[in-house]
């Protein structure tokens, strides 16, 4: 498949709402028979069942962006050739808002599924972005990903 590199494909950390359709349009080419997309969305109950009012995300952009680009480049070759786009949003998000979107296009579907899942898994583990949950009772707390804190370097 031509154009499998991440060059020119969206790979970004943004403050504005995420448009999944734009990502999907960007990764598609006539060589691709499969598109897989992932959307992470603010849900109403936290893992401990507390009612959520919204989330806020912050990033270390000078480190997060290169790491995101590295993950996209890895995903675009690791399972077969794939075209990968990924965008993470920061700032204050309300219920139902998308915090992250990944779109992958490939010739065959298995590659697209694997690459899409790889991107979101690695993003959670490796990209310096932080999430604060704001609860309906007025409290808030920072929440770490499983695997987001391995033995320190």
């Amino acid at each position, binding site marked *: 498949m031509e154009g499998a590199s991440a060059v020119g494909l969206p790979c970004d950390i943004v403050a504005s709402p995420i448009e999944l359709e734009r990502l999907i349009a960007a990764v598609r080419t006539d060589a691709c028979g499969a598109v897989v997309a992932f959307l992470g969305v603010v849900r109403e109950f936290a893992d401990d069942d507390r009612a959520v009012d919204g989330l806020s*995300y*912050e990033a*270390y952009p000078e*480190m997060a962006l290169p790491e995101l680009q590295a993950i996209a480049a890895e995903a675009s070759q690791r399972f077969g050739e794939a075209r990968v786009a990924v965008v993470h949003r920061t700032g204050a998000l309300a219920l139902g808002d998308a915090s*992250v979107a990944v779109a992958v296009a490939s010739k065959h579907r298995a590659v697209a599924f694997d690459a899409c899942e790889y991107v979101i898994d690695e*993003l959670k583990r490796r*990209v*310096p972005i*932080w999430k604060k949950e704001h609860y309906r009772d007025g409290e808030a707390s920072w929440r770490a*990903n499983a695997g987001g804190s391995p033995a320190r370097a």
Partner: protein
Amino acid sequence: MTVLAFARIREVIGASSATLELPEGATAASLWRELAERHPELVPLESSTRLARNGALVERGAVLSDGDEIGVMPPFGGG
């Protein structure tokens, strides 16, 4: 050098960036000790905190330079 603090660590320090003067030969570990002395609430966070120098993870033994930008990072929560 410049310290960039994020998330809970930013809240403890009360600023997203700070300038620290450390003696010649100071390591990432000495920078952390200096921060923890000023902000004792950081002490229990040590084992889960990672440091980055100029955008790349560093070990605690790394010797820092004057112009370095040091990110002080609690566990990630993106996604």
